[in-house]
């Protein structure tokens, strides 16, 4: 199973043998990849159309609706809780972010950057809601109801007292570039953040 670029980044951040929860696990590719390194855990997914693939990949998948939170899981019961390319489709991203910080010792969140220059150009000059390879749907039919920019996301983390331990911002073609390093919110297409609940000590 092939990993997307954000999944490759996430995989690099997760140590062997970790216990993880993958929210919106799709066909189970990331967990399947991680399990080969002794990582254990579950994938949660609302759509069971690719459950057969998950099962064949040896991934424990649980059908569940992330909008209802993670109440079935105890506090700090996973080393990492992953939410990749799903944040923007959640009804209350702030609520889910709090749930991620509660259930996971660390959280990894990957999302498409709506501040990417092409989005800005389409809106500013074309006067239309942006449509791209990462965000291919028209505004009226998109499941992506809560798009944000890198700046927006960092603000949300700060508001929730989440410390950013690491982040990676990439562009689909080049992975990394000088432009991205200088102006990530303008040139980054996909952002991945590693966060942890800020402790008072």
């Amino acid at each position, binding site marked *: 199973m092939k990993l997307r670029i954000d999944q490759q980044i996430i995989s690099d951040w997760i140590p062997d043998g970790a216990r993880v929860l993958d929210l919106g696990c799709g066909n189970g590719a990331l967990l399947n990849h991680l399990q080969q390194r002794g990582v254990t855990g579950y994938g949660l997914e609302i759509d069971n159309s690719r459950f*057969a693939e998950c099962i064949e990949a040896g991934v424990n998948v*649980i*059908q569940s609706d992330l909008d209802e939170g993670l109440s*079935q899981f105890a506090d700090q019961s996973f080393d990492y809780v992953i939410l990749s390319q799903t944040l923007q489709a959640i009804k209350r991203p702030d609520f889910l972010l709090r749930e991620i910080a509660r259930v996971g010792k660390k959280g990894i969140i990957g999302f498409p950057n709506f501040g990417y220059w092409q989005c800005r150009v389409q809106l500013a000059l074309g006067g239309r809601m942006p449509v791209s390879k990462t965000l291919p749907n028209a505004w009226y039919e998109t499941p992506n109801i809560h798009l944000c920019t890198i700046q927006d996301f960092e603000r949300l983390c700060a508001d929730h007292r989440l410390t950013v331990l690491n982040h990676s911002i990439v562009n689909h073609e080049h992975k990394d570039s000088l432009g991205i390093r200088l102006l990530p919110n303008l040139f980054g297409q996909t952002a991945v953040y590693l966060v942890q609940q800020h402790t008072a000590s």
Partner: protein
Amino acid sequence: MPDSIPADSVGLVSPTTYHIDTPLQLDCGRTLSSYDLIVETYGELNADKSNAVLICHALSGDHHAAGYHSMDERKPGWWDTAIGPGKAIDTNRFFVVCLNNLGGCKGSTGPMTINPDTGKAYGPDFPIVTVEDWVRSQAALADKLGIAQWAAVVGGSLGGMQALQWAISLPHRLRHTIIIAAAPKLSAQNIAFNEVARTAIKSDPDFHDGHYMAHNTLPKQGLGLARMLGHITYLSDEAMGEKFGRELRSGAIQYGYDVEFQIESYLRYQSTSFVGRFDANTYLLMTKALDYFDPAKKFNDDLNQTMAQIEAKSLVVSFTSDWRFSPMRSREIVNAMLAAGKSVTYAEVEAHQGHDAFLMPIPRYLEIFASYMNQVAGEIKA
């Protein structure tokens, strides 16, 4: 009746009766010194006896899960949609075992069996058996067949409860448990429906406190009524609406109390056909086994601690329109398994057929089921 046996059928099958003479101590305190279990098997047991799958039946089920008893049989076994060559439970890879549970009326020891102490049929004096008793008797059958560990124990509804009980009671004797359309225990509403069914049977003047056989009669009305009620709870409003709607048999309202709507006709048909093939005392016993099922009771009513006993990997499946054992009930099982850190996969299949969906050829359900069984087969190299 099949003109020819379909290629994906296990074909013509016949049952075998196993006599078990290891005494079985029952939860109610009584002991059965020996008993018979009628069994059907499909496929071949492999050399290391690792490919056996146990199928547990629901309330009115029996050992005839797949294939045909003869070319005259109108319908194949009750779970033919899932069991056969190339099907979800692939008989080319698995050795499938299905029995009529103890207390049944299709050939295993039960209320219709002659009580050796009296020389007469047990009738209502047959001890009430529990899901745990069934698991013990099924384990005795496994011993008899030389099966130390099932590749999987599989069941829907009351059968799913047995599959769950297996994983809790005898954790080392199964690799996988597949629990479909079940619940960790019955709700007050579930018990209430069972009590109405029992009252229907017991209040039939032909019931004679369960000794109807001695009176050469049958509580047809009562058992039929119980079945009608059961059928309503197995279907969803949507499924019933789709199948029958408000359709009238004669096309016009008759202003009378005879059967007018198609649904009435259907329920009466279900009722009469059931009365001819099922024993009322067994029906009472099965509903009690359902009511008593509560595996967490032994673990301080703590379901998480109960699930902590499990060694097997689990697949749990529910159906969106099932209101008898709704997805919420399956999620109770799953959440407790998650809390206990167990290996579990859970699917909530979109289906309009209600509780009966577990017996239906629903593509997404069978796809998930087949993928899971394929993994099971891979593990044991079947």
